[in-house]
């Protein structure tokens, strides 16, 4: 049984999907359904105080079906990320959702790259863990930064494949592989989720084949020309990558090894 656990919580599906950037809420709903995900991320923002007849996200998200993982997107300091985490937890407690107390921690360095500030991330992780949060920390693919974040108490480290929304996939598979190796040293079930930069289905498969426990993505689905179809592709990509990883792939070799035997050939083989 291939069980995925973060803290004591068993997660049914290793694909985590974001709720941002969809053309319509209806498309978002269908895409989430097609992806078969269980965990969805959301952001925390000011309520519109004017024109409250507009539709809002919570009207389109079945809170009994999905585990909501609030993010701290848009936070550039530990202090702000902690404020947002507390607000997100309060909202989920009121809604009785299993995600209450979980947070996708983002402490960003700048708006252009949206790369995480490692120092702020570590500070916020320590504080949030003290407050009883289960912290899933967005990180760069720097293996040493990832280890520091784990040491700060993160329940999962989520290294980026490439910048958020950039669609460049896993740009540095060596670093992701080193992150996995160092984070799982002596702790093989420590959850590592590749988060950010996924552009298409094969990116998800590559991440899973490297040994990631899961993949989190948003733009790769939401901004695909056919978001629902891409969500379905991602679902299959994740399964394929996980199965391939578990199957033990063949090594890469410099030269060829024939698939058909040379023994019993009727042909002339040059050089023999």
């Amino acid at each position: 049984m291939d069980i995925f656990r973060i803290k004591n919580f068993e997660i049914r599906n290793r694909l985590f999907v974001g709720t941002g950037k969809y053309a319509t809420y209806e498309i978002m709903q269908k895409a989430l359904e097609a992806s078969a995900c269980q965990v969805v991320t959301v952001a925390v923002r000011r309520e519109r105080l004017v024109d409250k007849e507009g539709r809002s996200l919570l009207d389109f998200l079945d809170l009994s079906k999905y585990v909501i993982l609030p993010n701290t997107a848009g936070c550039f300091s530990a202090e702000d990320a902690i404020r947002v985490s507390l607000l997100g937890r309060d909202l989920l407690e009121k809604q009785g959702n299993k995600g209450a107390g979980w947070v996708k921690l983002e402490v960003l360095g700048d708006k252009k790259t949206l790369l995480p500030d490692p120092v702020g991330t570590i500070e916020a992780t320590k504080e949030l863990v003290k407050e009883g949060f289960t912290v899933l920390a967005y990180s760069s693919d720097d293996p040493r930064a990832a280890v520091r974040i784990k040491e700060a108490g993160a329940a999962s480290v989520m290294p980026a494949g490439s910048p958020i929304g950039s669609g460049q996939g896993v740009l540095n598979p060596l670093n992701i592989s080193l992150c996995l190796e160092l984070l799982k040293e002596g702790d093989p079930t420590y959850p590592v989720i590749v988060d950010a930069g996924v552009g298409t289905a094969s990116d998800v498969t590559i991440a899973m084949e490297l040994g990631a426990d899961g993949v989190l993505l948003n733009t790769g689905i939401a901004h695909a020309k056919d978001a629902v179809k891409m969500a379905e592709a991602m679902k299959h990509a994740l399964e394929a990558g996980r199965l391939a990883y578990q199957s033990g792939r063949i090594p890469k070799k410099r030269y060829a090894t024939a698939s058909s035997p040379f023994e019993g050939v009727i042909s002339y083989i040059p050089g023999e």
Partner: protein
Amino acid sequence: MNVTVNGDRRELTEGTTLRELVKQFNLTPEKVALELNRRLVRSEKYDTALKEGDEVEIVTFVGGG
């Protein structure tokens, strides 16, 4: 009295509580979270009366990655 709500200065009746403020905007207390002067306020304290110069944030979930 002047209270900042979601970044905007607003004039409110003296003694308006957080709960009343939420209601004024046609919002449901269960679907929002509140901060008063940068600190989370839990629902048990929604009957707190606001004071001149207070800063309130009323937030909810929106789509995000």
